[in-house]
């Protein structure tokens, strides 16, 4: 700390020099910012400017620098100084480009720029260069849970990339659901014929792969630790338990077919009415010959009923579409036609869903004489001669099909383990001493797959319909348990081709996780971030908010009920920091101080000046870029606002707001991502937590004698450049209407 040297570099390029009084900025950096080195450069981001800074670091011992130039989102590659702490004062996108043209704005423009220099200097004073936490010892083995098609594929993918794999399969054999298929749908041109599944061959490869260790008849009794140091207690059927040390986990526990017995109206449970899995069994028995029913009778006519118990809007059955069933029925109809073209095979469908090259497979089946009828089946009766009653949607009439066998295309139900929402409720009650809840908890946890020793529950959080999917369109592998990835039908209904593709990708994400953690780097989305949260436990009140609110279950509690940070599980969003009422949690380069000092650094005018001052806390992922866009489009907004980017609205600590308002700011705008079902927060719950916390701040404001409107929250999308400018101007107008903050002068 002793030999820290602080420097400010001011750029006068891009017109900054013309519009700002640079000398004024330098003075601010010196007298108020207390910078020891202050340099101005006409073109700071070019080779020469950057070299100047590098030289100062190398020769002049500069350790902390504030770059007063363009947005932190611009020229990022130029301003890279790994050994120094860097803050950016956004004079270009943040001031020059958004303050209205003309000399009558010169004053406020200059004031705004000076404040950003003050803030940049204040921030850098509180920043440390994150050292990172390299862990040579961390494990790079990949644990694959589930030995079906997805699991075997993931295992092979990782092993072929040189990583050791431990595969845990609960049954006595590899192959999962796929090993009970006669054939699979084609993966490649010409997409005309059903193909051998290749399961046996793959299983053989997996079993004999030098880098893959397979545990059959095994489950996970407990999975403890974090990426790089998971210890999995693998419990054999025999009762013996082996401990496996692993770096990352790929969960591929597949699906269960929707229980046909729940579909009595479609003949579920009646003779000669089977589901697709049942048909595969008959096909395997026939092995290419004539397919016979359970009663041994040769099937001469077969009817397939699509969407059985799926796409159900009544809430009774599955609401979703399982995607694979149309192609599967086409494949199965071919079983019959290939064995004997004279067999009548009809597929009753509503929408035939065979995307991509599936269209060729559909054509091929028609070519073979499979009949496709657009209709909705209402009733199926089993027995020796089955009947399917349906509404023919083309001929617009109710009709009946007689068949020796009826196949119901039922859906996929994910095997994703314990539903954490359910668990949390029960767990809270149980912790509260409720005996019944304790039993429920034991019962529920017995259904767990991973048995995670996590404060936040034994399995991965589930998405809609019990699938462990990602909510992000651009980032399909992002789960809420760092270093644990889901693949295959347990995360989304899918066919075998998609499952193998999915598992291949998941294997890569697992490899990535172990590589990152070894270097002490944050995983997605703050990839490469070396900072991590530390807590001054002596100040901790054990309120548990951080452990509860962390969206990624990174924080456990030690036996003394203090938070126990698992850095390797942490995504560096700072939600814990925002949650902490006593502000003991901080990152080296992002803390209550780095932001709080910026809030304090701003020069808040008095009542007489009639210049309101508004603090904007903007999410760096969407709101801050949106503000940049406004600048790039040369839209103007009020020069009375001061913007501070935050990692996530979830990291906002209410102290910043109360401090600001206490110091005489007239208002505070909080700009975060969309919350709710279609949330766009990159840290899942961050913005939602922020809204929740801030909803409670009203009383505090009242206590200070302030109107609730002095603190407002907004959902801002990255495309909202124009909207955000308008919102700001509207809010400033509203505040001017309200008059200055009564707190002015007391700060």
């Amino acid at each position, binding site marked *: 700390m002793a030999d820290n040297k602080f420097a400010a570099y001011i750029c006068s390029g891009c017109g900054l020099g013309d519009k700002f009084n640079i000398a004024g900025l330098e003075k601010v950096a010196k007298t108020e910012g207390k910078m020891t080195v202050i340099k101005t450069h006409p073109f700071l981001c070019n080779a020469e400017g950057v070299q100047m800074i590098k030289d100062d670091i190398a020769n002049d011992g500069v350790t902390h620098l504030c770059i007063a130039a363009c947005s932190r989102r611009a020229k990022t590659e130029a301003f890279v100084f790994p050994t120094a702490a860097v803050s950016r004062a956004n004079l270009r996108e943040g001031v020059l480009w958004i303050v209205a043209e003309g000399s009558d704005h010169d004053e406020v423009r200059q004031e705004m720029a000076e404040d950003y220099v003050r803030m940049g200097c204040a921030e850098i004073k509180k920043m440390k260069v994150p050292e990172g936490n390299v862990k040579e010892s961390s494990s790079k083995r990949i644990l694959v849970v589930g030995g079906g098609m997805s699991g075997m594929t993931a295992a092979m993918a990782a092993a072929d990339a040189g990583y050791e794999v431990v595969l845990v399969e609960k049954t006595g054999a590899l192959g999962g659901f796929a090993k009970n298929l006669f054939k699979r749908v084609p993966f490649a041109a010409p997409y005309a014929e059903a193909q051998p599944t290749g399961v046996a061959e793959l299983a053989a490869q997996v079993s004999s792969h030098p880098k893959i260790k397979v545990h059959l008849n095994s489950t996970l009794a407990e999975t403890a630790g974090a990426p790089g140091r998971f210890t999995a207690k693998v419990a054999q059927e025999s009762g013996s338990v082996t401990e496996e040390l692993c770096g990352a986990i790929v969960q591929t526990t597949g699906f269960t077919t929707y229980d046909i017995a729940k579909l009595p109206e479609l003949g579920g449970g009646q003779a000669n009415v089977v589901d697709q899995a049942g048909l595969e069994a008959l096909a395997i028995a026939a092995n290419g010959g004539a397919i016979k029913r359970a009663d041994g009778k040769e099937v001469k006519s077969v009817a397939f009923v699509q969407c059985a118990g799926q796409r159900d809007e009544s809430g009774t059955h599955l609401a979703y579409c399982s995607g694979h069933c149309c192609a599967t029925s086409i494949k199965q109809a071919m079983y019959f036609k290939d064995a004997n073209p004279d067999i009548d095979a009809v597929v009753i469908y509503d929408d035939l869903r065979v995307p991509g090259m599936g269209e060729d497979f559909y054509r091929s089946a028609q070519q073979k004489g499979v009949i496709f009828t657009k209709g909705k089946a209402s009733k199926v009766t089993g027995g020796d001669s089955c009947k399917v009653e349906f509404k023919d949607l083309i001929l617009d009439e109710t009709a009946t099909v007689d068949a020796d066998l009826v196949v119901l295309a039922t859906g996929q139900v994910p095997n994703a383990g314990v539903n954490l929402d359910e668990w949390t409720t029960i767990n809270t009650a149980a912790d509260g001493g409720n005996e019944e809840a304790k039993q429920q908890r034991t019962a529920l946890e017995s259904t767990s797959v991973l048995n995670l020793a996590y404060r936040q529950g034994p399995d991965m959080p589930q998405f809609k319909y019990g699938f462990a999917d990602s909510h992000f369109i651009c980032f399909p592998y992002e789960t809420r348990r760092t270093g644990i990835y889901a693949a295959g039908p347990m995360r989304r209904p899918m066919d075998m081709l998609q499952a193998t593709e999915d598992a291949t990708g998941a294997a890569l994400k697992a*490899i990535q996780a172990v590589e990152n953690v070894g270097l002490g780097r944050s995983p997605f989305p703050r990839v490469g971030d070396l900072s991590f949260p530390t807590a001054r436990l002596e100040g901790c009140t054990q309120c548990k908010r951080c452990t509860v609110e962390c969206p990624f279950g990174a924080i456990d509690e030690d036996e003394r009920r203090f938070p126990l940070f698992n850095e390797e599980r942490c995504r560096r969003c700072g939600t814990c920091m925002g949650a902490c009422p006593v502000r003991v949690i901080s990152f080296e380069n992002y803390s209550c101080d780095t932001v709080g000092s910026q809030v304090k650094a701003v020069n808040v005018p008095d009542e007489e000046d009639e210049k309101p001052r508004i603090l904007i806390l903007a999410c760096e992922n969407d709101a801050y870029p949106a503000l940049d866009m406004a600048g790039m489009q040369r839209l103007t907004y009020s020069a009375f606002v001061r913007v501070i980017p935050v990692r996530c609205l979830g990291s906002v600590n209410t102290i910043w707001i109360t401090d600001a308002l206490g110091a005489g700011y007239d208002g505070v705008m909080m700009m975060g991502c969309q919350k709710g079902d279609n949330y766009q927060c990159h840290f899942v719950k961050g913005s939602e937590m922020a809204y929740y916390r801030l909803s409670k701040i009203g009383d505090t404001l009242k206590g200070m004698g302030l109107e609730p409107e002095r603190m407002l929250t907004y959902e801002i999308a990255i495309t909202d450049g124009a909207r955000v400018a308008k919102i700001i101007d509207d809010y400033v107008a509203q505040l001017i209407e309200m008059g200055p903050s009564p707190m002015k002068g007391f700060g």
Partner: protein
Amino acid sequence: MTASIATNQTILVVGGGIAGMTAALEAAECGKQVILAEKTPTLGGRTSLLYRYFPKMCHPTCGLEINLRRLRGNPNVRVMTMTEVAAVTGSRGNYAVTLKVKPRYVTENCTACGDCGNAVSAEIPNPANYGMDKIKAAYLPHGMAYPQRFVIDPSIAATPEGEKAKAACKVDAVDLGMQEETLELTVGSVVWATGWRPYDANKIQPYGYDRYANVITSLEFERLADPRGPTGGKLLRPSDGKEAKNIAFIQCAGSRDENHLRHCSRICCMATLKQTQYVREALGDAGKSTIYYIDIRAIDRFEDFYQNVQKDATVSFIKSKVARIALNEENNSPILHGVDTEGYHRYASEHDLVVLAVGMEPEVTGVKLPDDIILDSSNFIEGSKTEGMFGAGSASSPLDVNRSVQSATAAAMRAVQVIHKTASTEAA
């Protein structure tokens, strides 16, 4: 020249759209060296020209921002824009690649200050809006463009306009003397993420895209709905600039058709369902969307979205492949002729605007696939004979964004395997 920027343990990713960026980043974040070659001046690809994504209705640039940050912070990825792959020879673990780099006429000095754009007066059709409007011939492709550098259009490079741009640049970033460069380099594996292009709607003659101003493609509709688009987000008819209230969406425009694309393009149903919500966003209950379809392919949890749109009173569904479009010559409104096959009802319906949900076919402009590549019947990439090159995203199959990213991640995994094998055999 032979570039020392790559070795046989480098992965070349061709195409800088969402699939290419993903493949590059995922491999790089495993510690592998990657070259990401993009033929246009910016990364982002087609997704950056979409207004919203289904089913969340979120904005593509949101994910792009995160990916760009990953990219900026990652020294393992070398991004080369305006770069096309001219040739690839060799085999798994050792490919010789020839890259052609087109001149941008703007150097790394550029600070995107915009002075050059203000200086020139020449305009070109805006590639970011499918040419529906114009931009200056010295331009930043769009707000999220990466690298954040201007481009000077070749059409003005050697003209006084070009000189104006050069004169205006205070940071000496304009270099009108730039020439096309050729680079030879060695890589271990190649991921082809060359993406897709919309099927040429002119070929679908019964729908008169080439004859009727108010028949547009689904991609053009994305730009109409986007506030950053040519109409500032207003749904205005090309013929007269009047607001389109009664809009028809024609599915399978080119797809599932032996006369055009044999395959189903997968995304069009969801894209149209999404676009009906653009109509609602713009016009509320005053808007009217009609979807003419064969099968609605809203697979897996997208079914929710479909069911919600079905509940929207402003949206109606007609199971019919439209036979032809005629024109009401009084008001330039297209009249759709066909038969609703559910119960056989004949219609001749006039709409303000018709949106053709055009199919996806593999992009070919600026893409020269080596003979080594194995293609399916629609020319999507299945793999390579030498097993060291892989397709990713919609170059490998018609895929939505989410599945493209999965596909790209899988492709990165395969490339990483190749590099691992190369490395270990060399070590041995």
